[in-house]
């Protein structure tokens, strides 16, 4: 079977990273307004080597989310990120499509 096409592909990869003793954070789109490239529930997992799998936008804000995820891994505190179009920043960390998204970033903690 083509295991890597399953819904929880990202979570399986997170589990594998955990097994390999990496720190892991999970980013999930929790709400969207207007046009947005990925629906609510879309996930991105990141490890402490900045390797990532999945997506929360069409590539627009992933880089920024990965940096926030590194902070979350270190602090252990979940946070909510918001992205929209912010003219000057649009190329950096905005959504070119004109939408807005909220992303919940949480660490994977032993327990």
């Amino acid at each position, binding site marked *: *079977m*083509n295991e890597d*096409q*399953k*819904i*929880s592909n990202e*979570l*399986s990869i*997170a*589990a594998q990273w*955990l097994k390999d003793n990496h720190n892991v954070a*999970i980013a*999930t789109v*929790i*709400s969207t307004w207007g046009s947005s490239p990925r*629906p*609510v*529930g879309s996930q991105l997992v990141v490890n402490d080597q900045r390797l990532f799998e999945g997506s929360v936008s069409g590539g627009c804000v992933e880089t920024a989310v990965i940096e926030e995820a590194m902070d979350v891994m270190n602090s252990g505190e*979940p946070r*909510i990120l918001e992205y929209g179009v912010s003219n000057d920043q649009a190329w950096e960390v905005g959504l070119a499509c004109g939408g807005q998204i909220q992303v*919940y970033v*949480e*660490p*994977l*903690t*032993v*327990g």
Partner: protein
Amino acid sequence: MKTSVLHKLIDANADKRAVALVTNLDDNTQVLIYRQALTDRNQLELAVTDAFRRDRSQVVEIDGRRQFIQVYNSPLRLMIVGAVHIARPLIEMGQSCGYDVTLIDPRQAFASTTRFPAVNLCNEWPDKALKNLGLDARTAVVTLTHDPKLDEPALIAALESDVFYIGALGSRRTHRERCDRLVEAGITVDQINRIHAPIGLDIGAQSPAEIAVSVIAELTQTLRQGSLQ
């Protein structure tokens, strides 16, 4: 997310059980709620039931607290009857679209691991196979054999279930003759109308891969837009 929660989510997916992860966005606590355990005894469970039904994750506010309901529905499945030429691109495209694909054909010369190495293979008779595999509202059934004695038992089994999509390969004429036989077998016209035939969106597809595109497109339309078309 705790590692125990992560492993429970992965297990639920492997067991094809629908589960929701509810995160309280104020204090970051999380609980898992399995669909089969829902009793709708409070506002949260009602919201989770609604999220499952619409297959849509969402933030809800209950008693002034924001809760994010993440739906992990049971996997989408595609049952293909007939290990014929078109099955190959259909399997690949189905898998790319996230379907757990099973290929059913009692003719072992057709449904062999040499011809189809990367899919669940089943050599049982189609109606028996489909019943054993358990058809549900997250499943699509496509028949490709052109052989009534293989296609039609599969179609009847599919019609007796709540699969979200049923499609049958074959010309309009083939389908008219098929409908006559299904009526004779006691299937009502309303039931027969659930069958998409000729299968696929009308995009002038010619090659097996193009036909697979039209089938996957129609499947997607039915899944995402219901019976709007």
